[in-house]
C-alpha cells in the first residue's frame, strides 16, 4: 500500500452507487491531489452520496475509491481514523454543551480524555465559540451551530475533512466567516473537501474542483485551469463598431456587449487588439484575460 503522504488525496475508479433502482453515482473516475477540493453540483447531483461512499458509510455498488491511499470498501475504519465530517444536516445533541460535545467528538476519534479537553478548548476558540463553549447547543443560533459542527469535524486533527454544504442557512456575514475558517484549514495541514451548490463559495475557498452533474463527473481539475479562458476582454471608450469590424476582418471571433468586447483569436489576442486599436485610433479603459466563473462553466457543460 502506498503511504498516505505519497498517495493522492482521493482516487476513484469506475465508482458507482445506486439506491435500489436509482443510480446516484455513475462510473466516477478522478484523482485529486492534497489541498482544498471543491465538490460542486446542483441539488441531487450526488455530492452527499459521494461523500458518504468516501467515508465508508455507503458501500460502492461498483468500482473502488481510495481516500488517503486507503481502500474505503476494504478498510472503512482505517479511513475514518484519519478524516472528519461535517454533515449538511445538524449533527448536534441539543442537551449537551458545546464544550462537552466537542470533547466527546474528539474521544470518539480515539483522542485520550485529557488531550481531548485541551483540543476541544483550542478548536472552539479557533471557530469563535470560546465564549459560548459552556452553553447548551440547543440554545445556539444557526451560525453558531455551523461553527460547532466544524469544530467537531476537526477537533481530532484529521488529515482530511469533508464539509457538506458548510454555509447552508447562514446569513452573508456568517457565510463569509465560515469561508474564512475553511480557508484557514489548509494552513493547519488539514486537507478539505467542500461540497456546495453555491459555486462562489467554491471559488472563494478551493484550488481544485470536481463538478458533478446527475451523478457523473462533468469536469475535474485545478480551479485556475477550469476557470481560465483563451479570450480577452476589452472595454472601449468609443468606436466599438470600427474595432469589431477590424477584428473580424483579421479573423478574430468578437462578442460585443455594449462597450465591452470579448475577443478570441487564433494568434496572440493581445497583440491583435493592440494593432487594431492603433489602426482605428480607438481608446480603451481596460484590457484583461477573460475570467469564467464556475457558474459559466457549469451552465456551458451542463447544457451540452
Amino acid at each position, binding site marked *: 500500500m502506498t503511504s498516505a503522504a505519497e498517495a493522492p488525496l482521493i482516487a476513484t475508479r469506475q465508482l458507482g452507487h445506486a439506491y435500489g433502482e436509482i443510480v446516484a453515482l455513475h462510473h466516477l473516475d478522478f484523482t485529486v491531489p492534497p489541498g482544498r477540493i471543491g465538490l460542486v453540483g446542483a441539488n441531487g447531483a450526488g455530492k452527499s452520496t459521494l461523500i458518504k461512499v468516501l467515508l465508508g458509510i455507503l458501500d460502492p455498488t461498483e468500482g473502488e475509491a481510495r481516500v488517503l491511499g486507503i481502500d474505503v470498501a476494504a478498510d472503512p475504519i482505517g479511513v475514518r481514523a484519519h478524516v472528519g465530517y461535517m454533515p449538511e444536516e445538524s*449533527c448536534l445533541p441539543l442537551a449537551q454543551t458545546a464544550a462537552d460535545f466537542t470533547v466527546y467528538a474528539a474521544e470518539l476519534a480515539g483522542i485520550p480524555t485529557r488531550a481531548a479537553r485541551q483540543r476541544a478548548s483550542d478548536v472552539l476558540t479557533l471557530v469563535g465559540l470560546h465564549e459560548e463553549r459552556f452553553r447548551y447547543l440547543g440554545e445556539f443560533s444557526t451560525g453558531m451551530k455551523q461553527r460547532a459542527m466544524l469544530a467537531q469535524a476537526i477537533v481530532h486533527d484529521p488529515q482530511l475533512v469533508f464539509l457538506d454544504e458548510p454555509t447552508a442557512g447562514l446569513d452573508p456575514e456568517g457565510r463569509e466567516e465560515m469561508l474564512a475558517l475553511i480557508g484557514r484549514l489548509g494552513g493547519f495541514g488539514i486537507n478539505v473537501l467542500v461540497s456546495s451548490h453555491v459555486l462562489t463559495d467554491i471559488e472563494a475557498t478551493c484550488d481544485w474542483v470536481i463538478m458533478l452533474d446527475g451523478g457523473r463527473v462533468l469536469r475535474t481539475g485545478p480551479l485556475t485551469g477550469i476557470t481560465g479562458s483563451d479570450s480577452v476582454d476589452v472595454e472601449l471608450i468609443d468606436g466599438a463598431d470600427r474595432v469589431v469590424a477590424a477584428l473580424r476582418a483579421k479573423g478574430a471571433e468578437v462578442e460585443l456587449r455594449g462597450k465591452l468586447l470579448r475577443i478570441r483569436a487564433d494568434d496572440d489576442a493581445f497583440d491583435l487588439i493592440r494593432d487594431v486599436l492603433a489602426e482605428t485610433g480607438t481608446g480603451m479603459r481596460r484590457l484583461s484575460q477573460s475570467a469564467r466563473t464556475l457558474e459559466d462553466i457549469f451552465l456551458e457543460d451542463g447544457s451540452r
Partner: protein
Amino acid sequence: MTTGTPATNGTGTEQGAVFDLGYQPHDGPRLGRRGAFLATVRDGVRRILGIRRKARKKLMPWLLFAIAMLPVIAVVGLSFFTDVLLDAQVGNDNPFAGHPQLFTLTSSVFLIFTALAGPELLIPDRVEGVLSVYASRPMRITDYIGARATALAIAAGGFLVVPQLVMYVGLATLDDDGWFSGLVSNIGDVPKILFASLFYLLAYGAPAFLVGMFAKRLGPAWGVYLAVMLLSTAFAVAISEATSGVGRYAALAALSINPDIVMDWIFDRSTFREGITSAGFGPLWSVGVIVGLGLVSWFVGLRKYRSLL
C-alpha cells in the same frame, strides 16, 4: 506553530508578548475503536443519569433512585431500631424484608427507570443527527450498539445492585458477631443479587432498547414501553388461563413476570406467579424467554442501524 509579534512600548523595550498559538496538531496516542467504545459508554451513562445536562434531565433518574433506596433505608432503620435500641436480637434472619423482597419492591420503580433510560440512549442520537458523527469515527455498528447496551447495563444495573448492596452491608453492621462476620456469613447473597439483577436488566432493558430503536420521540416511547410491559403481562395471563394446550405458551409473554420467577429460583424461593407458574412452566423457560429477548434486541439493533451508521 507559534506565531505573533511581541508588543513593545515604542522605545524598543519589550513589555510583553501576545502569541497566537493557532492550531496545534495532535501528536499523542490515538486509542482507536477501544477509545471510541469507552467514550460512548461514558456518554451513555452520563446521559441516562443526566450528568452534565440540565437539571430537569437529572430529576427523574435521581428521584427514582431515591425512591428505590427508601425500602432499604426503612429495612435497615427498622432492623437497627429493633436490634440495637430494643435489643431484640434481629440477627441474620431479618423479619422485615430480605433481598428477594427488595427486588420485588424496587422492580416497579426499575420499570420506570428503564422506560426513561432505553429511549434516552438511542432516540436523541438518531433524531438529532448525531449518528453522522459516529459514522465518521473509527467505530463499527457493533461498537455503537454494544457501547449503548453497556451504558444501560452500568446505569440500570447499578440502580438494581446498589440498594441491594447497601442493604447487605447495612444489615451486616447489625450482626451479633460484628460487621465483618456479617459480611462473610452472607457472602453467598452477593452472586445471587448479581445474577438476579442481570435477568431483571435483560428482561426490562431489552424491550426498552427495542422501543428506543424505533420511536422518534421520548414521550411516546416511554408510554409504548410501559404499555407493552404491563399489558403484555395482563394479556398473557388472561390468554393462558382462558385456553389450554398450545395457548398456555402465551403465559411466557408476561414480560414483567419472567424475571420475578428467575429471581425466586436464584434465591431458592417458591412463590406462585399467576400465569407462568399456573401454566406449568419452570424457571428455565423464563430464563430462555429473557435471553431470547436480549438476543432479539441485539440483532434487531444491528439490522436497524446498518442503514444508519
